[in-house]
């Protein structure tokens, strides 16, 4: 079609125009740094891990041991390993299903039934994810362990019926703990989707003669499938990557993360750990693909400009049901937090009530944990600041510049989001564990790098979501006014995406303060963090110290989230989305 017009053959002209854009160096440099970081600390380690998975078993060495399929042979030929794989799949799938069964009805009740204290319910509903999950697991030992008070009490009640509930150790305990820890993801998203839905859609269906259940089945539920799918995936990847809960109450039941730790720390075989990591990645990848496949057939554009208030159920029955449901879920999921705070003031808790009131647990923190506290805050804050910078820039690149291969960049950034922490650790160890030039084990650097790799997606997603809603003409207006790219970025883009940067950073900071699954493989004598100390205290049965430290973490994390929630325009949920 173009032959008719005077141009096109004039290639020199086109090149000149292209050259001018290549001259924009400030952009190029700022954009290159995060890219290089990703290449060195994510893509390269993942590649090395994949290679190592096909190396012969190593005994406390990072050197080349020869090509072999021994790792996979061990995995698929040993009962313990295969069992761990099956356990992982059973636990993660059950947790995902239970989270949906709890989170969706609860989200619906809070969004669509007229009940008091909705804001409080939503805030309380996020608490379970801000507590270190293995601490939650340990409190369930107090409550539901072999002699746990709740178990004894319930079994006494159930005795006439001839049933008993099992001890917390094992599959039941893992599924229970993870469900109560992760249901908030589904609850928060379901709440958002149900309350943010366009009321006109349901009203028009109603005007056309559809009944309540029909509207629910044909309009309401189909429209929340995308956010439901996203939160279900989030729960699944968290559950399959969780190290703390299986480590504390798994008993003899290994799952993939604990198996990786066993292979690396116990057997000293980085190559076997790499093989397991590869299998873990494949499973997660399959689930991700399945989720995308299901959700892709249910993605809709919203076609409406105006939103009206959604009608709420006001009948007594509905309100009673909603209140009871929310209370039961909240009580069960917050029981660990309460238990831990109570426990922190006592010496022992073996019978019905704790005994030996004391301040000693807190006094000990200053004596024995000051270095760990410093480490935790230093590492988390440093990593958070760098995540904020990198995440924002990367989001800006993919959203605004749409370079060639933006999809690939997006995938590289988001990959660690679905990778289990132990897998990321193994990858970093594979790449930087043994070589002379780049030996990073036991340093602050490797922890900060692993934190950045794993948490940059929070800020990235949060900012990207914000940018899609931000009219590009705001930035264009600045350019027209005579501002260079950097001036525009500084004075217009950054101030406008600040709320998203803050909410992404808060998510990053609060989760890093309690990070265990990555740290457990990477920490050294000097870089021990508070969660590691809690984990060790739990394993040594030093419940008082574990509780006091957990309480401190809990208060710090809660204070950060509370401060942020009082700020306008910040929204945690956007950083949780895929």
């Amino acid at each position, binding site marked *: 079609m173009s032959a008719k*017009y005077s141009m096109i053959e004039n290639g020199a002209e086109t090149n*000149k125009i292209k050259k001018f854009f290549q001259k924009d160096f400030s952009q190029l440099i700022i954009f290159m740094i995060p890219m290089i970081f990703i290449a060195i600390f994510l893509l390269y380690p993942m590649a090395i891990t994949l290679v190592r998975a096909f190396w012969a078993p190593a005994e406390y060495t990072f050197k080349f041991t020869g090509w072999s399929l021994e790792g996979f042979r061990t995995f698929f030929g040993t009962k313990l390993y295969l069992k761990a794989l099956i356990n992982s799949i059973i636990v993660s799938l059950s947790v995902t299903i239970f989270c949906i069964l709890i989170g969706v009805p609860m989200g619906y009740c809070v969004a669509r039934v007229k009940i008091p204290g909705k804001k409080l319910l939503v805030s309380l509903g996020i608490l379970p994810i801000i507590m270190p999950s293995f601490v939650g697991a340990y409190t369930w030992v107090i409550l539901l362990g072999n002699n746990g008070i709740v178990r004894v009490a319930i079994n006494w009640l159930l005795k006439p019926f001839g049933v008993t509930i099992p001890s917390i150790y094992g599959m039941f305990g893992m599924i229970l703990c993870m469900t109560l820890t992760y249901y908030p993801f589904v609850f928060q998203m379901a709440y958002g989707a149900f309350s943010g839905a366009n009321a006109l859609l349901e009203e028009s269906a109603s005007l056309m003669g559809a009944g309540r259940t029909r509207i629910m089945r044909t309009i309401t539920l189909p429209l929340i499938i995308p956010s439901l799918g996203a939160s279900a995936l989030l729960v699944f990847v968290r559950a399959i990557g969780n190290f703390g809960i299986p480590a504390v109450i798994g008993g003899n039941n290994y799952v993939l993360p604990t198996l990786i730790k066993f292979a690396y720390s116990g057997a000293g075989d980085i190559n076997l750990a790499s093989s397991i990591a590869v299998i873990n990645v494949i499973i997660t990848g399959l689930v991700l693909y399945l989720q995308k496949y299901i959700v892709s057939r249910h993605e809709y554009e919203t076609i409406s400009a105006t939103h009206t208030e959604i009608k709420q159920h006001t009948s007594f029955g509905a309100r009673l049901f909603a209140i009871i449901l929310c209370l039961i879920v909240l009580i069960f999921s917050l029981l660990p937090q309460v238990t831990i705070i109570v426990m922190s003031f006592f010496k022992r808790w073996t019978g019905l009530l704790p005994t030996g009131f004391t301040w000693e647990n807190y006094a000990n923190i200053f004596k024995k944990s000051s270095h760990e506290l410093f480490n935790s805050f230093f590492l988390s804050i440093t990593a958070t600041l760098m995540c904020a910078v990198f995440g924002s820039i990367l989001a800006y690149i993919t959203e605004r510049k749409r370079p060639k291969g933006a999809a690939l960049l997006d995938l590289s950034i988001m990959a660690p989001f679905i990778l289990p922490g132990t897998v990321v650790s193994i990858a970093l160890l594979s790449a930087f564990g043994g070589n002379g030039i780049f030996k990073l084990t036991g340093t602050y650097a490797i922890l900060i790098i692993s934190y950045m790799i794993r948490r940059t997606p929070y800020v990235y997603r949060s900012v990207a979501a914000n940018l899609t809603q931000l009219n590009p*003409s705001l930035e264009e207006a600045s350019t027209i006014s005579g501002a260079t790219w950097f001036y525009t970025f500084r004075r217009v883009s950054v101030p406008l995406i600040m709320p998203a940067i803050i909410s992404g950073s808060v998510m990053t900071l609060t989760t890093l303060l309690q990070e265990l699954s990555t740290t457990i493989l990477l920490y050294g004598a000097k870089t021990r963090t508070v969660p590691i100390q809690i984990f060790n205290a739990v394993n040594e049965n030093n419940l008082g110290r574990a509780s006091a430290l957990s309480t401190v973490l809990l208060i710090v994390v809660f204070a950060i989230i509370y401060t942020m929630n009082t700020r306008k325009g910040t929204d945690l949920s956007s950083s949780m989305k895929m």
Partner: protein
Amino acid sequence: MSKTVRYENVNKIFGLGTKNEVHALKDVTFTINEGELFCLLGPSGCGKTTLLRNTAGLDTITSGKMYYGDVDISTIPPYKRNIGMVFQSYALYPHMSIFENVAYGLRVRKVPNDIVKKKVTEVMELVGLQEELKRNPSPTALSGGQQQRVAIARALVYDPDVLLLDEPLANLDAKLRRYMRAEIRRIQKATNITTIFVTHDQEEAMAVGDRLAVLRKGLVEQIGTSDELYNQPRNAFVANFIGKMNFFNAHVVSKDAEETVAEIDSTGIRVAIKPERQHVDAKVGDQVLIGGRPEYLSVTTQASDKAVPGKVRIIQHLGSFIRYEVEVNGNISPVTFEIDMDSLQKDIHEGDTINVTFDQSRVALFSPEGREI
């Protein structure tokens, strides 16, 4: 300093070399005069916004040249072009007060504080927002019309060479839109900055612009004043886009230097048309269109051999005139006629079969090519 804007063979191709290649601007060549208020008009997808964005430098043209005055700006980045632009969404910065919004371009230019204050005050007086400036709220606290004024002030404050307006009135309600278009013309004449105004609304373009360019599918169809475009449209598309034109299917039966005679299909009615109203070079036997504005046509109950029979579909009272929508035989014209009468015809009702006559001295001859918008 106001400058001319000149386009020389400007082409823009999106997705060059890919399957989805879109030729959005085709050999655009024309000049906008110094201090002129120039409208780019056309249906959506015609390339008017593309031309504006390329003029601003927000996009780069694929080939050709653009000049501000004598300077070739084709490859100059937008922030060095010294232009002002008002966006359809206004693009006001929600994190700054209206003073800082307007001052933005001066801050970029590192203008001293006292001059910034003076210039912002001046320009806010020009756009009629001196009272709002005293309270200095966030732009989100202003009404749509006021936000529009802030956006104009922000674009004018640093004395740009060229002012670009991208559908600036699209977000306002009908009444305010009519008021603001007069305001824009007043402000433009007061500053005398060369201005390009993009719109899809022909009434707005005719009311505001000194001159207009009508674009279609990346091509400039015609450039001229409102009067020229309305009374001497070059082709059927322009005729039907600038106002309404009714078309009769016809064929040429004779032609000489004095006049061309065309016969309306399946009627035998012959119309003689003078050369100045022939917008097609048709030979005897060629298919053509005879076009007449709604006001050149009449509905009547009287029979006549110079009339076309039709059926009244809808009668609309539009204040100063009455519009009759009349359906005629598909051979005569496939589309419904719009006929404007000065007064209501008492003996004609919806559904009546009537006759359509027309002022033979005012109709024009067009090519049947590309009539649709």
